[in-house]
Protein backbone atom coordinates (compact mmCIF):
# COMPACT_ATOMS: atom_id res chain seq x y z
CA UNK A 1 0.00 0.00 0.00
CA UNK A 2 1.42 3.41 -0.89
CA UNK A 3 1.95 5.81 2.03
CA UNK A 4 0.12 8.68 0.34
CA UNK A 5 -2.79 8.50 -2.08
CA UNK A 6 -4.23 11.77 -3.28
CA UNK A 7 -7.34 11.34 -5.39
CA UNK A 8 -8.74 14.35 -7.20
CA UNK A 9 -7.95 16.74 -4.36
CA UNK A 10 -8.89 20.38 -4.89
CA UNK A 11 -8.54 23.48 -2.76
CA UNK A 12 -9.89 26.92 -3.56
CA UNK A 13 -9.20 30.20 -1.76
CA UNK A 14 -11.95 32.54 -2.90
CA UNK A 15 -11.62 32.86 -6.66
CA UNK A 16 -8.19 31.20 -6.73
CA UNK A 17 -7.90 27.46 -7.26
CA UNK A 18 -4.69 26.62 -5.41
CA UNK A 19 -4.89 22.88 -5.96
CA UNK A 20 -6.87 21.63 -8.93
CA UNK A 21 -8.02 17.97 -9.00
CA UNK A 22 -4.61 16.54 -8.16
CA UNK A 23 -3.99 12.79 -8.33
CA UNK A 24 -0.75 11.59 -6.80
CA UNK A 25 0.62 8.45 -5.24
CA UNK A 26 3.73 8.41 -3.08
CA UNK A 27 5.40 5.14 -2.16
CA UNK A 28 7.02 4.24 1.14
CA UNK A 29 10.66 5.24 1.51
CA UNK A 30 10.55 7.83 -1.22
CA UNK A 31 12.08 11.27 -1.03
CA UNK A 32 9.43 12.99 -3.07
CA UNK A 33 9.76 16.61 -4.20
CA UNK A 34 6.91 18.95 -5.11
CA UNK A 35 8.51 21.45 -7.43
CA UNK A 36 7.10 24.65 -8.86
CA UNK A 37 7.17 28.42 -8.87
CA UNK A 38 5.48 30.55 -6.25
CA UNK A 39 1.70 30.21 -6.28
CA UNK A 40 1.75 26.87 -8.12
CA UNK A 41 -0.05 25.13 -5.23
CA UNK A 42 2.82 23.02 -3.92
CA UNK A 43 2.67 24.44 -0.40
CA UNK A 44 -1.13 24.13 -0.29
CA UNK A 45 -0.81 20.48 -1.30
CA UNK A 46 1.67 19.95 1.55
CA UNK A 47 -0.69 21.70 3.98
CA UNK A 48 -3.52 19.48 2.81
CA UNK A 49 -1.38 16.48 3.78
CA UNK A 50 -0.57 18.01 7.20
CA UNK A 51 -4.25 18.84 7.77
CA UNK A 52 -3.86 22.62 8.06
CA UNK A 53 -6.17 22.95 5.05
CA UNK A 54 -9.17 20.81 4.22
CA UNK A 55 -9.78 19.87 0.60
CA UNK A 56 -12.88 21.20 -1.16
CA UNK A 57 -13.05 18.02 -3.15
CA UNK A 58 -11.33 14.68 -3.53
CA UNK A 59 -9.73 12.37 -1.00
CA UNK A 60 -6.42 12.13 0.77
CA UNK A 61 -5.30 8.81 2.22
CA UNK A 62 -2.26 8.43 4.42
CA UNK A 63 -1.16 4.88 5.10
CA UNK A 64 -4.47 3.70 3.66
CA UNK A 65 -6.54 5.80 6.05
CA UNK A 66 -8.88 8.50 4.78
CA UNK A 67 -7.80 11.78 6.34
CA UNK A 68 -11.16 13.53 5.91
CA UNK A 69 -12.08 15.10 9.26
CA UNK A 70 -8.81 14.09 10.93
CA UNK A 71 -7.31 17.22 12.58
CA UNK A 72 -3.56 17.91 12.29
CA UNK A 73 -2.81 16.74 15.82
CA UNK A 74 -4.14 13.25 15.07
CA UNK A 75 -2.31 12.69 11.78
CA UNK A 76 0.67 10.31 11.57
CA UNK A 77 2.55 13.12 9.89
CA UNK A 78 5.07 15.69 11.02
CA UNK A 79 6.19 18.81 9.31
CA UNK A 80 9.31 20.87 9.19
CA UNK A 81 8.18 24.44 8.66
CA UNK A 82 9.90 26.85 6.33
CA UNK A 83 10.20 29.38 9.18
CA UNK A 84 11.08 26.42 11.48
CA UNK A 85 8.36 27.64 13.92
CA UNK A 86 10.52 26.84 16.96
CA UNK A 87 8.90 27.75 20.28
CA UNK A 88 10.87 30.80 21.44
CA UNK A 89 10.02 30.38 25.14
CA UNK A 90 11.38 26.84 25.36
CA UNK A 91 14.88 25.42 25.31
CA UNK A 92 16.05 23.35 22.36
CA UNK A 93 15.51 20.13 24.32
CA UNK A 94 11.98 21.21 25.33
CA UNK A 95 11.20 22.03 21.72
CA UNK A 96 12.24 18.54 20.66
CA UNK A 97 10.44 16.95 23.63
CA UNK A 98 7.19 18.82 22.92
CA UNK A 99 5.69 16.20 20.62
CA UNK A 100 6.66 13.32 22.88
CA UNK A 101 5.12 15.02 25.94
CA UNK A 102 1.84 15.28 24.04
CA UNK A 103 1.95 11.51 23.60
CA UNK A 104 2.26 11.20 27.37
CA UNK A 105 5.44 9.14 27.30
CA UNK A 106 7.29 8.60 30.59
CA UNK A 107 9.95 11.20 31.42
CA UNK A 108 12.90 8.82 31.08
CA UNK A 109 11.86 7.67 27.62
CA UNK A 110 11.37 11.25 26.50
CA UNK A 111 14.82 12.32 27.72
CA UNK A 112 16.39 9.37 25.96
CA UNK A 113 14.71 9.99 22.65
CA UNK A 114 15.35 13.75 22.78
CA UNK A 115 19.06 13.12 23.40
CA UNK A 116 19.18 10.64 20.52
CA UNK A 117 17.37 13.03 18.18
CA UNK A 118 19.69 15.90 19.08
CA UNK A 119 22.72 13.67 18.56
CA UNK A 120 21.34 12.68 15.19
CA UNK A 121 21.43 16.29 14.03
CA UNK A 122 24.76 16.94 15.81
CA UNK A 123 23.35 19.24 18.48
CA UNK A 124 23.87 16.94 21.45
CA UNK A 125 25.32 19.66 23.69
CA UNK A 126 22.92 22.46 22.66
CA UNK A 127 19.85 21.13 24.47
CA UNK A 128 19.72 23.83 27.13
CA UNK A 129 20.01 26.77 24.73
CA UNK A 130 17.15 28.92 23.51
CA UNK A 131 16.36 28.92 19.77
CA UNK A 132 17.32 32.61 19.65
CA UNK A 133 20.87 31.67 20.69
CA UNK A 134 21.38 29.37 17.69
CA UNK A 135 22.57 30.05 14.17
CA UNK A 136 20.24 29.60 11.21
CA UNK A 137 21.71 26.21 10.35
CA UNK A 138 21.40 24.99 13.94
CA UNK A 139 17.79 26.14 14.10
CA UNK A 140 17.05 24.21 10.95
CA UNK A 141 18.47 21.08 12.57
CA UNK A 142 16.41 21.60 15.73
CA UNK A 143 13.29 21.85 13.57
CA UNK A 144 14.29 18.63 11.86
CA UNK A 145 14.99 16.85 15.15
CA UNK A 146 11.66 18.03 16.58
CA UNK A 147 9.78 16.55 13.63
CA UNK A 148 11.85 13.34 13.40
CA UNK A 149 11.71 12.49 17.10
CA UNK A 150 8.03 11.58 16.70
CA UNK A 151 8.99 8.87 14.20
CA UNK A 152 6.31 9.94 11.75
CA UNK A 153 5.22 7.72 8.90
CA UNK A 154 5.58 10.73 6.70
CA UNK A 155 7.79 13.77 7.12
CA UNK A 156 6.74 16.92 5.31
CA UNK A 157 9.41 19.51 4.59
CA UNK A 158 8.38 23.00 3.49
CA UNK A 159 11.32 24.59 1.64
CA UNK A 160 13.73 22.96 4.10
CA UNK A 161 16.83 24.70 2.74
CA UNK A 162 15.43 28.06 1.62
CA UNK A 163 16.53 29.97 4.72
CA UNK A 164 20.12 28.71 4.65
CA UNK A 165 23.00 30.35 2.85
CA UNK A 166 24.39 28.70 -0.23
CA UNK A 167 27.39 26.92 1.29
CA UNK A 168 25.35 25.46 4.14
CA UNK A 169 22.63 24.38 1.74
CA UNK A 170 24.95 22.05 -0.19
CA UNK A 171 26.01 20.17 2.94
CA UNK A 172 22.50 20.04 4.41
CA UNK A 173 21.17 18.59 1.17
CA UNK A 174 23.35 15.49 1.56
CA UNK A 175 22.59 15.36 5.27
CA UNK A 176 18.83 15.22 4.65
CA UNK A 177 19.20 12.49 2.04
CA UNK A 178 21.45 10.50 4.39
CA UNK A 179 18.92 10.78 7.26
CA UNK A 180 16.05 9.82 5.00
CA UNK A 181 17.87 6.69 3.79
CA UNK A 182 19.12 5.72 7.27
CA UNK A 183 15.73 6.09 8.92
CA UNK A 184 13.86 4.60 5.97
CA UNK A 185 11.18 7.29 6.26
CA UNK A 186 9.12 8.87 3.53
CA UNK A 187 9.94 12.53 2.95
CA UNK A 188 7.72 14.87 0.97
CA UNK A 189 9.52 18.09 0.27
CA UNK A 190 8.29 21.34 -1.23
CA UNK A 191 10.81 23.42 -3.12
CA UNK A 192 11.02 26.08 -5.78
CA UNK A 193 14.63 25.18 -6.48
CA UNK A 194 14.83 22.72 -9.36
CA UNK A 195 18.47 21.91 -8.64
CA UNK A 196 17.53 20.97 -5.07
CA UNK A 197 14.64 18.81 -6.24
CA UNK A 198 16.73 17.11 -8.91
CA UNK A 199 19.70 16.33 -6.69
CA UNK A 200 17.75 15.10 -3.65
CA UNK A 201 14.56 13.41 -4.71
CA UNK A 202 13.86 9.89 -5.86
CA UNK A 203 10.84 11.23 -7.71
CA UNK A 204 9.50 14.70 -8.25
CA UNK A 205 6.31 16.36 -9.41
CA UNK A 206 6.39 19.59 -11.37
CA UNK A 207 3.38 21.76 -10.53
CA UNK A 208 1.85 24.74 -12.27
CA UNK A 209 -1.44 26.56 -11.58
CA UNK A 210 -2.55 23.98 -9.07
CA UNK A 211 -2.01 21.00 -11.35
CA UNK A 212 0.72 18.42 -11.56
CA UNK A 213 2.32 18.72 -15.00
CA UNK A 214 4.60 15.71 -14.77
CA UNK A 215 5.73 13.13 -12.21
CA UNK A 216 8.80 10.94 -12.42
CA UNK A 217 12.38 10.35 -11.36
CA UNK A 218 14.52 13.48 -11.88
CA UNK A 219 16.45 12.14 -14.90
CA UNK A 220 13.26 11.11 -16.62
CA UNK A 221 11.58 14.47 -16.09
CA UNK A 222 14.72 16.21 -17.27
CA UNK A 223 15.39 14.04 -20.28
CA UNK A 224 11.80 13.39 -21.31
CA UNK A 225 9.77 16.48 -20.48
CA UNK A 226 6.28 16.03 -21.82
CA UNK A 227 5.25 19.65 -21.98
CA UNK A 228 6.79 22.91 -22.93
CA UNK A 229 6.26 24.13 -19.36
CA UNK A 230 8.23 21.27 -17.82
CA UNK A 231 10.98 21.49 -20.45
CA UNK A 232 11.34 25.18 -19.71
CA UNK A 233 10.97 24.94 -15.93
CA UNK A 234 13.53 22.18 -15.42
CA UNK A 235 16.84 23.27 -16.90
CA UNK A 236 17.09 25.12 -20.17
CA UNK A 237 15.54 23.89 -23.39
CA UNK A 238 15.47 24.95 -27.01
CA UNK A 239 11.91 24.59 -28.22
CA UNK A 240 11.90 23.87 -31.94
CA UNK A 241 8.93 23.57 -34.29
CA UNK A 242 8.91 20.30 -36.18
CA UNK A 243 6.02 20.07 -38.59
CA UNK A 244 2.88 20.39 -36.49
CA UNK A 245 4.56 19.50 -33.21
CA UNK A 246 7.23 20.87 -30.91
CA UNK A 247 10.62 19.48 -29.94
CA UNK A 248 12.63 20.18 -26.80
CA UNK A 249 16.37 20.08 -27.22
CA UNK A 250 18.71 20.52 -24.24
CA UNK A 251 21.69 22.85 -24.87
CA UNK A 252 24.23 20.22 -23.77
CA UNK A 253 22.89 17.72 -26.33
CA UNK A 254 24.14 19.94 -29.15
CA UNK A 255 27.73 19.56 -30.33
CA UNK A 256 29.47 22.76 -31.29
CA UNK A 257 32.24 22.72 -33.92
CA UNK A 258 34.11 24.88 -36.38
CA UNK A 259 34.25 22.30 -39.19
CA UNK A 260 31.17 20.97 -40.94
CA UNK A 261 30.36 17.58 -39.40
CA UNK A 262 30.08 14.52 -41.66
CA UNK A 263 26.50 13.75 -42.58
CA UNK A 264 26.46 9.97 -42.28
CA UNK A 265 25.73 7.93 -40.24
CA UNK A 266 25.51 10.26 -37.24
CA UNK A 267 24.78 12.98 -36.24
CA UNK A 268 21.42 13.13 -37.76
CA UNK A 269 20.93 16.86 -37.61
CA UNK A 270 23.31 19.68 -38.44
CA UNK A 271 22.91 23.34 -38.98
CA UNK A 272 25.23 26.29 -39.55
CA UNK A 273 25.10 29.40 -37.41
CA UNK A 274 26.87 32.38 -35.92
CA UNK A 275 27.65 32.91 -32.25
CA UNK A 276 25.82 36.05 -31.08
CA UNK A 277 26.47 35.85 -27.34
CA UNK A 278 28.57 33.93 -24.83
CA UNK A 279 27.83 33.46 -21.12
CA UNK A 280 30.97 32.19 -19.36
CA UNK A 281 30.07 29.95 -16.40
CA UNK A 282 33.51 28.65 -15.44
CA UNK A 283 33.22 24.96 -16.16
CA UNK A 284 30.97 25.54 -19.16
CA UNK A 285 29.90 28.33 -21.42
CA UNK A 286 26.44 28.95 -22.79
CA UNK A 287 26.40 30.14 -26.39
CA UNK A 288 23.56 31.82 -28.22
CA UNK A 289 23.86 30.79 -31.83
CA UNK A 290 21.79 32.40 -34.60
CA UNK A 291 20.69 29.83 -37.18
CA UNK A 292 18.06 29.61 -39.89
CA UNK A 293 15.82 27.83 -37.34
CA UNK A 294 16.13 30.68 -34.86
CA UNK A 295 18.52 31.40 -32.02
CA UNK A 296 19.61 28.18 -30.30
CA UNK A 297 21.25 27.83 -26.89
CA UNK A 298 24.28 25.56 -26.84
CA UNK A 299 26.21 24.53 -23.77
CA UNK A 300 29.81 23.34 -24.13
CA UNK A 301 32.47 22.36 -21.60
CA UNK A 302 35.45 24.69 -21.40
CA UNK A 303 38.15 22.12 -22.09
CA UNK A 304 40.88 24.50 -23.15
CA UNK A 305 42.33 26.45 -20.22
CA UNK A 306 42.30 29.82 -21.93
CA UNK A 307 38.53 29.39 -22.03
CA UNK A 308 38.24 31.00 -25.40
CA UNK A 309 37.37 28.05 -27.61
CA UNK A 310 34.87 30.14 -29.52
CA UNK A 311 34.44 33.82 -30.12
CA UNK A 312 31.49 36.03 -30.69
CA UNK A 313 30.49 36.42 -34.34
CA UNK A 314 32.35 33.19 -35.20
CA UNK A 315 30.74 30.92 -37.81
CA UNK A 316 30.09 27.51 -36.27
CA UNK A 317 28.30 24.22 -36.93
CA UNK A 318 25.73 22.68 -34.60
CA UNK A 319 24.95 18.97 -34.63
CA UNK A 320 22.78 16.62 -32.56
CA UNK A 321 21.79 12.99 -32.56
CA UNK A 322 18.49 11.84 -34.03
CA UNK A 323 17.15 10.87 -30.57
CA UNK A 324 18.50 13.96 -28.76
CA UNK A 325 15.31 15.97 -29.08
CA UNK A 326 12.18 15.17 -27.10
CA UNK A 327 8.77 15.42 -28.72
CA UNK A 328 6.36 17.48 -26.58
CA UNK A 329 2.73 16.52 -26.12
CA UNK A 330 1.42 20.04 -25.80
Amino acid at each position, binding site marked *: MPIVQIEGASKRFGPVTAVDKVDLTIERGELFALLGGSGCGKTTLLRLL*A*GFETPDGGRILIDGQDMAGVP*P*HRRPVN*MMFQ*SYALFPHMSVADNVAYGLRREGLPKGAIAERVAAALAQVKLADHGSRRPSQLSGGQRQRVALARALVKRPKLLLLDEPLAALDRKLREGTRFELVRLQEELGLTFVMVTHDQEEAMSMSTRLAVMDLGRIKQVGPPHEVYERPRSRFVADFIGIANILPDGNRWLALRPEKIALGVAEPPSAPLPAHRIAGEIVDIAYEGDRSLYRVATERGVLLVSAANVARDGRSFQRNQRVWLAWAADAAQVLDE
Partner: protein
Amino acid sequence: MRFVIALPFLWLAVFFLLPFALVLAIALGSNAPDLAPPVELGFSLKNFALLFTDDLYVAAWLSSLRIAATATVVTLLLGYPMAYAVARTSARWRPVLLMLVILPFWTSFLIRVYAWIGLLANNGLLEQFLRWTGLAQNPETILGTEWAVQLGIVYAYLPFMVLPLYAALEKLDLGLLEAAADLGAPPVAAFLTITLPLSLPGVVAGCLLVFIPAVGEFVIPDLLGGTGTLMIGKVLWDEFFTNADWPLASAVAICLLVLLVGPIALFQRQQAKSLERK
Protein backbone atom coordinates in the same frame (compact mmCIF):
# COMPACT_ATOMS: atom_id res chain seq x y z
CA MET B 1 23.27 67.23 24.89
CA ARG B 2 23.64 67.32 28.66
CA PHE B 3 20.95 69.93 28.85
CA VAL B 4 18.56 67.66 26.95
CA ILE B 5 19.20 64.85 29.40
CA ALA B 6 19.02 67.18 32.38
CA LEU B 7 15.64 68.60 31.38
CA PRO B 8 13.45 65.61 32.31
CA PHE B 9 15.39 65.19 35.54
CA LEU B 10 14.87 68.83 36.34
CA TRP B 11 11.17 68.36 35.58
CA LEU B 12 10.98 65.39 37.92
CA ALA B 13 12.86 67.26 40.63
CA VAL B 14 10.59 70.28 40.48
CA PHE B 15 7.27 68.55 39.96
CA PHE B 16 7.74 65.23 41.73
CA LEU B 17 10.58 65.24 44.23
CA LEU B 18 9.85 68.69 45.64
CA PRO B 19 6.11 68.06 46.17
CA PHE B 20 6.94 64.63 47.56
CA ALA B 21 9.33 66.22 50.06
CA LEU B 22 6.61 68.69 51.02
CA VAL B 23 4.07 65.92 51.53
CA LEU B 24 6.60 63.95 53.57
CA ALA B 25 7.32 67.00 55.71
CA ILE B 26 3.61 67.54 56.31
CA ALA B 27 3.15 63.85 57.14
CA LEU B 28 5.83 64.12 59.80
CA GLY B 29 4.18 67.17 61.32
CA SER B 30 1.01 67.31 63.38
CA ASN B 31 -2.48 68.63 62.87
CA ALA B 32 -3.01 72.27 63.87
CA PRO B 33 -6.57 73.35 62.94
CA ASP B 34 -5.94 76.95 63.98
CA LEU B 35 -3.05 77.52 61.61
CA ALA B 36 -3.29 78.15 57.88
CA PRO B 37 -2.28 75.80 56.42
CA PRO B 38 -3.33 73.60 59.33
CA VAL B 39 0.04 72.00 59.90
CA GLU B 40 2.63 72.30 62.60
CA LEU B 41 5.91 70.98 61.25
CA GLY B 42 7.85 68.57 63.34
CA PHE B 43 9.32 65.12 63.30
CA SER B 44 6.87 62.59 64.58
CA LEU B 45 5.88 59.22 63.20
CA LYS B 46 2.55 59.18 65.03
CA ASN B 47 0.53 59.65 61.84
CA PHE B 48 2.18 56.60 60.30
CA ALA B 49 1.78 54.63 63.50
CA LEU B 50 -1.92 55.47 63.49
CA LEU B 51 -2.29 54.10 59.97
CA PHE B 52 -0.99 50.72 61.03
CA THR B 53 -2.75 50.48 64.36
CA ASP B 54 -6.16 52.08 63.86
CA ASP B 55 -8.65 49.44 62.72
CA LEU B 56 -10.31 51.83 60.30
CA TYR B 57 -7.14 52.39 58.31
CA VAL B 58 -6.03 48.77 58.41
CA ALA B 59 -9.48 47.73 57.18
CA ALA B 60 -9.35 50.36 54.43
CA TRP B 61 -5.95 49.10 53.31
CA LEU B 62 -7.07 45.50 53.25
CA SER B 63 -10.34 46.14 51.47
CA SER B 64 -8.55 48.33 48.89
CA LEU B 65 -6.13 45.52 48.15
CA ARG B 66 -8.93 42.97 48.06
CA ILE B 67 -11.16 45.02 45.76
CA ALA B 68 -8.25 45.86 43.45
CA ALA B 69 -7.11 42.22 43.35
CA THR B 70 -10.62 40.95 42.64
CA ALA B 71 -11.08 43.55 39.91
CA THR B 72 -7.74 42.53 38.39
CA VAL B 73 -8.74 38.87 38.26
CA VAL B 74 -12.18 39.65 36.84
CA THR B 75 -10.84 42.03 34.18
CA LEU B 76 -8.25 39.40 33.24
CA LEU B 77 -10.92 36.71 32.86
CA LEU B 78 -13.10 39.05 30.80
CA GLY B 79 -10.31 40.78 28.94
CA TYR B 80 -8.35 37.75 27.79
CA PRO B 81 -11.11 36.27 25.60
CA MET B 82 -11.88 39.78 24.30
CA ALA B 83 -8.25 40.48 23.37
CA TYR B 84 -7.95 36.98 21.88
CA ALA B 85 -11.02 37.49 19.74
CA VAL B 86 -9.79 40.88 18.50
CA ALA B 87 -6.34 39.48 17.70
CA ARG B 88 -7.87 36.59 15.73
CA THR B 89 -10.41 38.63 13.78
CA SER B 90 -9.70 39.35 10.14
CA ALA B 91 -7.56 42.42 9.50
CA ARG B 92 -10.62 44.22 8.20
CA TRP B 93 -12.62 44.08 11.42
CA ARG B 94 -9.76 44.43 13.88
CA PRO B 95 -9.58 48.26 13.83
CA VAL B 96 -13.35 48.41 14.39
CA LEU B 97 -13.20 46.11 17.42
CA LEU B 98 -10.17 47.96 18.82
CA MET B 99 -12.05 51.21 18.36
CA LEU B 100 -14.93 49.80 20.41
CA VAL B 101 -12.49 49.01 23.22
CA ILE B 102 -11.01 52.50 23.15
CA LEU B 103 -14.26 54.38 22.50
CA PRO B 104 -15.24 54.83 26.21
CA PHE B 105 -12.10 56.97 26.68
CA TRP B 106 -13.70 59.61 24.49
CA THR B 107 -16.18 60.34 27.25
CA SER B 108 -15.12 61.72 30.60
CA PHE B 109 -14.34 59.10 33.20
CA LEU B 110 -16.47 60.94 35.73
CA ILE B 111 -19.53 60.99 33.47
CA ARG B 112 -19.21 57.30 32.73
CA VAL B 113 -19.15 56.49 36.44
CA TYR B 114 -22.12 58.79 37.00
CA ALA B 115 -23.97 56.93 34.27
CA TRP B 116 -23.75 53.79 36.39
CA ILE B 117 -25.68 55.56 39.13
CA GLY B 118 -28.51 56.08 36.66
CA LEU B 119 -28.35 52.44 35.67
CA LEU B 120 -28.19 50.99 39.15
CA ALA B 121 -30.32 53.43 41.13
CA ASN B 122 -33.70 52.56 42.64
CA ASN B 123 -36.15 52.70 39.78
CA GLY B 124 -33.13 53.03 37.49
CA LEU B 125 -32.77 51.52 34.04
CA LEU B 126 -31.57 48.13 35.27
CA GLU B 127 -34.43 47.78 37.74
CA GLN B 128 -36.99 48.80 35.14
CA PHE B 129 -35.52 46.30 32.73
CA LEU B 130 -35.65 43.51 35.30
CA ARG B 131 -39.27 44.33 36.11
CA TRP B 132 -40.20 44.59 32.43
CA THR B 133 -38.72 41.18 31.62
CA GLY B 134 -40.23 39.71 34.77
CA LEU B 135 -36.85 38.45 35.94
CA ALA B 136 -37.34 40.15 39.28
CA GLN B 137 -40.21 42.15 40.74
CA ASN B 138 -38.64 44.09 43.57
CA PRO B 139 -34.91 43.83 43.02
CA GLU B 140 -32.72 45.40 45.63
CA THR B 141 -30.20 47.81 44.18
CA ILE B 142 -26.50 47.07 44.55
CA LEU B 143 -25.79 50.79 44.44
CA GLY B 144 -24.00 51.81 47.61
CA THR B 145 -22.52 48.37 48.16
CA GLU B 146 -19.11 46.89 47.43
CA TRP B 147 -20.64 45.05 44.47
CA ALA B 148 -21.28 48.34 42.75
CA VAL B 149 -17.71 49.50 43.44
CA GLN B 150 -16.36 46.24 42.07
CA LEU B 151 -18.57 46.49 39.01
CA GLY B 152 -17.51 50.10 38.40
CA ILE B 153 -13.81 49.32 38.69
CA VAL B 154 -14.07 46.32 36.35
CA TYR B 155 -16.01 48.42 33.85
CA ALA B 156 -13.63 51.40 34.02
CA TYR B 157 -10.36 49.43 33.87
CA LEU B 158 -11.26 46.72 31.35
CA PRO B 159 -9.65 48.55 28.39
CA PHE B 160 -6.37 48.78 30.34
CA MET B 161 -6.41 44.99 30.51
CA VAL B 162 -7.54 44.36 26.94
CA LEU B 163 -5.01 46.59 25.19
CA PRO B 164 -1.73 45.10 26.50
CA LEU B 165 -3.20 41.59 26.11
CA TYR B 166 -4.15 42.38 22.55
CA ALA B 167 -0.65 43.70 21.83
CA ALA B 168 0.87 40.47 23.14
CA LEU B 169 -1.59 38.15 21.36
CA GLU B 170 -1.45 40.00 18.08
CA LYS B 171 2.33 39.47 17.89
CA LEU B 172 1.95 35.71 18.31
CA ASP B 173 3.15 33.80 15.26
CA LEU B 174 0.26 31.55 14.20
CA GLY B 175 2.84 29.20 12.68
CA LEU B 176 3.76 28.22 16.24
CA LEU B 177 0.21 27.00 16.86
CA GLU B 178 0.33 24.99 13.64
CA ALA B 179 3.63 23.51 14.76
CA ALA B 180 2.07 22.59 18.12
CA ALA B 181 -0.90 20.93 16.38
CA ASP B 182 1.45 19.15 14.03
CA LEU B 183 3.34 17.74 17.02
CA GLY B 184 0.12 16.33 18.46
CA ALA B 185 -1.24 19.10 20.66
CA PRO B 186 -5.05 19.47 20.63
CA PRO B 187 -6.21 23.13 20.62
CA VAL B 188 -6.53 23.42 24.41
CA ALA B 189 -3.03 22.03 25.01
CA ALA B 190 -1.62 24.32 22.31
CA PHE B 191 -3.26 27.28 24.05
CA LEU B 192 -1.88 26.34 27.47
CA THR B 193 1.65 25.55 26.28
CA ILE B 194 2.15 28.14 23.52
CA THR B 195 -0.37 31.00 23.49
CA LEU B 196 -0.64 31.54 27.23
CA PRO B 197 3.09 31.54 28.08
CA LEU B 198 3.89 33.77 25.12
CA SER B 199 1.19 36.26 26.11
CA LEU B 200 2.41 36.37 29.73
CA PRO B 201 4.14 39.76 29.34
CA GLY B 202 0.75 41.13 28.25
CA VAL B 203 -0.96 39.47 31.22
CA VAL B 204 1.54 40.99 33.67
CA ALA B 205 1.31 44.43 32.04
CA GLY B 206 -2.50 44.34 32.02
CA CYS B 207 -2.76 43.18 35.63
CA LEU B 208 -0.44 45.91 36.88
CA LEU B 209 -2.15 48.57 34.80
CA VAL B 210 -5.43 47.60 36.46
CA PHE B 211 -4.19 46.80 39.96
CA ILE B 212 -2.00 49.86 40.58
CA PRO B 213 -4.59 52.57 39.90
CA ALA B 214 -7.44 50.47 41.31
CA VAL B 215 -5.83 50.31 44.76
CA GLY B 216 -5.84 54.09 45.03
CA GLU B 217 -9.17 54.55 43.26
CA PHE B 218 -11.25 57.32 44.79
CA VAL B 219 -13.99 58.40 42.35
CA ILE B 220 -15.65 55.00 41.92
CA PRO B 221 -16.00 54.10 45.62
CA ASP B 222 -17.12 57.66 46.33
CA LEU B 223 -19.88 57.64 43.71
CA LEU B 224 -20.98 54.00 43.58
CA GLY B 225 -20.02 52.78 47.03
CA GLY B 226 -21.75 53.64 50.24
CA THR B 227 -20.40 54.43 53.62
CA GLY B 228 -19.76 50.74 54.09
CA THR B 229 -17.13 50.52 51.36
CA LEU B 230 -13.75 51.53 52.65
CA MET B 231 -11.05 52.25 50.18
CA ILE B 232 -7.81 53.97 50.99
CA GLY B 233 -8.19 56.58 48.25
CA LYS B 234 -11.48 57.62 49.75
CA VAL B 235 -10.00 57.71 53.25
CA LEU B 236 -7.30 60.03 51.96
CA TRP B 237 -9.93 62.32 50.49
CA ASP B 238 -11.96 62.33 53.68
CA GLU B 239 -8.94 63.08 55.88
CA PHE B 240 -7.93 65.93 53.66
CA PHE B 241 -11.21 67.61 52.78
CA THR B 242 -13.67 66.54 55.45
CA ASN B 243 -11.45 66.31 58.53
CA ALA B 244 -8.86 68.83 57.23
CA ASP B 245 -6.18 66.61 58.79
CA TRP B 246 -3.37 67.34 56.35
CA PRO B 247 -0.62 65.39 58.13
CA LEU B 248 -2.67 62.20 58.32
CA ALA B 249 -3.80 62.54 54.70
CA SER B 250 -0.17 63.03 53.69
CA ALA B 251 0.86 59.93 55.60
CA VAL B 252 -1.83 57.93 53.76
CA ALA B 253 -0.56 59.27 50.43
CA ILE B 254 3.01 58.30 51.21
CA CYS B 255 2.04 54.81 52.32
CA LEU B 256 0.02 54.36 49.17
CA LEU B 257 3.01 55.36 47.08
CA VAL B 258 5.37 53.03 48.96
CA LEU B 259 2.88 50.18 48.66
CA LEU B 260 2.64 50.64 44.89
CA VAL B 261 6.38 51.01 44.30
CA GLY B 262 6.71 47.22 44.43
CA PRO B 263 4.23 46.42 41.62
CA ILE B 264 5.47 49.41 39.59
CA ALA B 265 9.07 48.20 39.82
CA LEU B 266 7.87 44.75 38.75
CA PHE B 267 6.12 46.31 35.78
CA GLN B 268 9.23 48.25 34.78
CA ARG B 269 11.37 45.13 34.98
CA GLN B 270 8.88 43.19 32.88
CA GLN B 271 8.90 45.92 30.24
CA ALA B 272 12.69 46.04 30.19
CA LYS B 273 12.84 42.27 29.86
CA SER B 274 10.40 42.12 26.96
CA LEU B 275 12.40 44.89 25.23
CA GLU B 276 15.57 42.88 25.71
CA ARG B 277 14.03 39.80 24.16
CA LYS B 278 13.41 41.68 20.93
